[in-house]
């Protein structure tokens, strides 16, 4: 019983140290603020997701055409809009000299 309680106390001490570790390692940090997803980062992610989706859609169309699920006519009809969407998504990700992060953030 005594041994079990001693082991339990040791376990508790270890746990307390481990849980308090972030405070022990940085007793007086320059900033204790948790990273927050800003408007710029949010927009960047949206654009990246849109880009990946547009490129994936193009790949899917190409693959569906090659495997016979999309006829030549349908392929030609769908290819243009999808290419345009992919190009727009890629253009939106290009850095623009006239848009500083504050401006991007300000629009949202």
């Amino acid at each position, binding site marked *: *019983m005594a041994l*079990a*309680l001693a*082991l*339990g*106390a040791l*376990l*508790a001490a270890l*746990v307390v140290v*481990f*849980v*308090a*570790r*972030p*405070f022990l390692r*940085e007793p007086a*940090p320059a*900033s*204790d*603020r*948790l*990273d*927050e*997803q800003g408007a710029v980062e*949010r927009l960047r*992610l*949206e654009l*990246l*997701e*849109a880009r*990946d*989706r547009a490129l*994936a*859609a193009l790949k*899917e*169309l190409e*693959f*569906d055409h*090659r*495997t*016979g*699920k*999309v*006829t030549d*006519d*349908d392929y030609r009809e*769908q290819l243009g809009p999808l290419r345009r969407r992919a190009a727009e998504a890629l253009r939106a990700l290009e850095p623009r000299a006239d848009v500083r992060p504050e401006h991007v953030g300000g629009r949202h």
Partner: protein
Amino acid sequence: MAALGRVALLLSFALVVYALTAGSYAAYRRRRRLALSAQNALLAAFGTTLVASAVLLTALARRDFSFVYVASHTSRSLPLGYTLSAFWGGQEGSLLLWLLILSGYAALAVWLNRRSRELVAWVVPVLGGVATFFAFMLCFVSSPFDKAVAPADGAGMVASLQNPYMLAHPPMLYLGYVGLTIPFAFAMGALLSGRTDERWIVATRRWTLTAWTFLGVGQLLGAHWAYVEIGWGGYYAWDPVENAALMPWLAATAFLHSVMIQEKRGMLKVWNMVLVALAFNLSIFGTFLTRSGVINSIHSFSQSPLGGWFLGFIAVCVVFSVGIIYLRLPLLRARTKLESLVSREATFLYNNLLLVALALTILWGVMYPLLTQAVNGETRSVSKPYYNFFLHSFGLPLLLLMGIGPLVAWRRASLRALGRTFIIPAVAALVTGGALIGVGLGSSTPGLLAYTFSAFVFASIVLEFVRGTRATGSLRRLVAKNRRRYGGYVVHASVLLLAIGIAGSSAYQTIRERGLNQGQSMEVAGYTLTYRSLQNTQHANSQSTSATVEVSRGGSHVATLHPGKSFYPVENDFGNDVSIYHDPRTIGDVFTIADQFDKNGTLFLKVLVKPLVNLVWAAGFLFVFGSLVALWPDAVEQRRLAERYEPGAVAART
């Protein structure tokens, strides 16, 4: 050592309460160190729960009957493997297993996603909240560390649990049930943090697939346990606890499909949140059914006072998840719409509706006795015909959709393209259906439809691989480029095997029963079974009586079977010892049950001939293989996702 176990559990409780409260405060007030501290608390809770589990396992291995739990579930004569499996054989131990798996999963998931601090900051309190409930139950309601004066011997284990499948089936199910907490926590974390981009989906994709695989394998192992142990000749009886595992699996299956629509088209964001919440809540409901004993089931080995606590917790979870989804609806609006009702995404949607409808009708069937009891004080339950009706109504169209989906293009498909891709599978289906009717197997409409649709699905899957291989140049490249899709097709093939096995072994099975004296024979579906002799055998923890039955076919001896019964004196319990001949020619079984022996030595033998039943078990292996293919990491995709979500880390590495 019980004191150490109690202390460890109290520490777990304190840690998860801290993860919940400090984690919520830190996430809300944006306190970095406090959020990290809450995260550490969750990691530490795994360590302390591991210590508590080690204490219980040690007590079981030492057969320390001063632990009430050990004395209640084991005995001196119980073999060591079964003694250790008592860890999850009883209520307190299985709750401890829940907490152990949950804290282990939580620690790993949080650690793997530690760079996404904003999201993880909210995931920690959600995981802490779920863990708090289980730690509370273990500390204050149902402790495995209660002590009493040790009896000379324990009460033993229920006879039906003394089966090798019990070593793997419950842990597998728990790995599945508990695993569904991780996608739930990340989904709720995403809503709480307002990060409704796809980060939470990327973080939990493999967790969902892993939990779903475990749940699927766990159910198949359970079905096989029922088949070889319960001794009624079947493997699934629509028992409430079996249904309890099936429902979250169906919801998770729907989610695995619909999440692809969100990834590819940015649609169904609300629906995916609903499915994740539904799968999680159904997994808690499943645990409640298994552990509370409120509904009569072959799996409810004890009545317990846990029911009220579980119902309260389920209510909190449902209100929390519905509330948060409702509050965040504006963030979940899709910017794209379904372009056509004839497209791949539309077939996924139909599949989702059928899967959820099936899950909900099963839920209604499971809850019916509780509801009738609550409304008019009289317990009424629905039986096999109810479930079979809905299985046929929703399951057969689902089977067909499994074949249609791969043939339809994304976005929209024209009639001309459909005609081209459907022709071979449609011919295969018609030929199969016609052939079955031709050979006189058209007596069962569901069976006939299942086989006709199966032929369609099989042809569709084969075509997918053939056309894809032609398009990419090699099968290896094809699969490597899209492991999830082609792993998914392998899983579809396993479902196909399952459907064929189930249809064959239920729609076309033969059952005969009669009393036989030694030397007498009976004929069943082309087999002759001759009763030769009777033996009594003493085992370490049981006494068995078994018959020797010779099986022949076409005049040739094919097997000797030993159906019988065992008596477990410590438990004062009987078990059925079924004996099975696996016939490689029919991929089926000759399943024998010794229903009764009378004092004159007459054997009342029940024989079931179940064609194709072994496809059900073979499906399990294919299912695991397909899941592994889908789970296998894709380096290119991981780089792309890292660039998307962790640009700093990628830049630092390059």
